[in-house]
């Protein structure tokens, strides 16, 4: 255990762990990470909540349209919407990806087949622009930035 490698490792580790800047960096990134988990979970939970209401809405609409147009098929098909749903995957809270831009529920009817497929979900365009602070953002952007800012002069500062 007393190899050069081990000694270097131990010294480097001590320097790193005792450096208040690296501790601060880790605390900041960790806090953001906790928030990112919360944010991802929250966003997907809201989508799931909405998706859960779809069955009821569909049921109610069917009942209403049956009541008014049971003898008039053309009017029935004109007024009756069918709801689709795109369930989030198990890992969606980790990386929200494009789920905020693309619809997770689309209502379609027999009329105007093609155009209705491109209906957009209502979203705040400013939020779409800034993107989601989910855990994948932390891994893809923040942690590399942290590593770079802590290690950029590891060797060059000794010169």
């Amino acid at each position: 255990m007393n190899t050069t490698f081990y000694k270097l490792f131990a010294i480097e580790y001590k320097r790193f762990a005792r450096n208040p800047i690296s501790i601060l960096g880790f605390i900041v990134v960790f806090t953001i990470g906790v928030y990112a988990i919360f944010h991802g979970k929250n966003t997907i939970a809201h989508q799931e909540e909405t998706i859960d209401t779809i069955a009821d809405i569909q049921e109610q609409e069917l009942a209403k349209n049956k009541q008014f147009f049971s003898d008039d098929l053309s009017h029935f098909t004109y007024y009756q919407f069918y709801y689709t749903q795109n369930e989030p995957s198990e890992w969606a809270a980790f990386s929200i990806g494009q789920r905020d831009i693309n619809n997770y529920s689309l209502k379609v009817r027999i009329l105007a087949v093609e155009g209705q497929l491109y209906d957009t979900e209502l979203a705040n365009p400013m939020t779409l622009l800034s993107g989601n602070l989910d855990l994948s953002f932390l891994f893809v952007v923040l942690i590399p930035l942290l590593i770079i800012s802590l290690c950029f002069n590891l060797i060059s500062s000794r010169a």
Partner: protein
Amino acid sequence: MNSIKNIIAVEWKNIIRTKTAMVLIAVFAVLLLFSAFIGIENKVEQNSIRQKYQEQVHDDYVNQPDRNPHRVSHYGYLVFRERPALSFFEFGIESFAGNSVFLEAHRQNTVNLSEAGFSNGMLRFGELSMALILQLLVPLFIFFIGYGTLADLKSNGVLKIMLAQGISAKKLIWGKTLGIFSFTTAVFIGAVLLIFTIAFAVYPEELTTEVVMRSIFAVGLYTLYFFICSWVTVVVSAKSSRGGTALICLIVLWMLCGIILPKMAQNIGQGIYPAISKLEFETNITEDLEKVGDSHNPDDVYYNRFKAKTLAEFGVNDVKDLPFNYVGHLMAEGERITTELYRAHFDELITTYAKQNSIASYLSFVNPYPMLRNLSMAVTGTDMAHYIDFQKQTEAYRYKQTQYFNELHKHEIDAEHSGTQRLDKSRFKERETFQYNKRGLFWALSNQFTTLFALFFWAILMMSSFAFGFKKIKL
């Protein structure tokens, strides 16, 4: 005064002597030219495509056969959103905003087909626009050329000699800030002015008074932003004992202010003021509509009362004896109610969005980046307010046109043939085309009141720092 001039001259000389600074300028200049080219090409092409299809939609519309007016209002009309003149410079929310909206009776459709809907997640890492380079990369350049401006003088002892020779700390900081600021401005604002001149020389039809005013404001805005960045750089450099420390400090600041904080602000806003989904939005409108009444229900209280009121008004006992077609009259009433409800709910939704965005506006008081970004988007017409305004104008147009067809239905269609009688196609040519009423600079700025206030706050903060602060530099 002379000594400040000397400091600025030395600063310029030092920057020009730094090889890396020159390389960075070359790289950024190429990037600026490239992004300007892409931006202009993209904007011009998009607008010509949109105009072409807008004309096609209108031709198809005008040349449709004789039709029942209600069929015409369901046949609908497609409006394409024109990209604002300065969107080649700042993309703003352009890529996340839809391109076209389908206008029809009874239904308010969303503006569909945004660039983002067809892209993958890469769009979120930012698009290379001229504005992005000026907003995020030029500050890095400023940090790079200025981090050592005072800290290095400290570590090699020159600062002590300078201060001993009687230069005041304030003069030194003022001169250094002006030096870095004037150099950056000369290079990058110069490049921007050059690109704008070329762009408007190639496309002179874009050059209206409004666009010139907006451009001037944008250039002024970015100049002030560079001053803020230079000021921050010199202040950090003055507080640091070594150049290296100043550089780390500035880069951490850049990451926090440019990447992490703006994103967090928007996400927190979304968390505090949750917005409803489209499904909830539509369900809420339907619920409110059912509270008023259902025109399909023969026993409906509201519509029976409406019918009784209409009959009483004309002193008749049956809808057949009315001097007009009751169906058209009823449809106009239905349209009025649904539109009123839709608009109320839409305004509510926009208020929620505005609240979500307000967190970033408040952040502008401590972080100049969201301040600049919000104002830059407002000035170039690529912010949310302009997009919402487009939606509201198309909705007003949709309502007016639908009611025009309901009027036709009411007065020119026989009650017996309500669903089948056709009107001569010449009647549909009377329809006006949709004209987006372009908004002015002051309208754009009036939507960013908080951010504008933050701009004044920053200006006052910097002025008072030179007036009252910087008594001495810690050695």
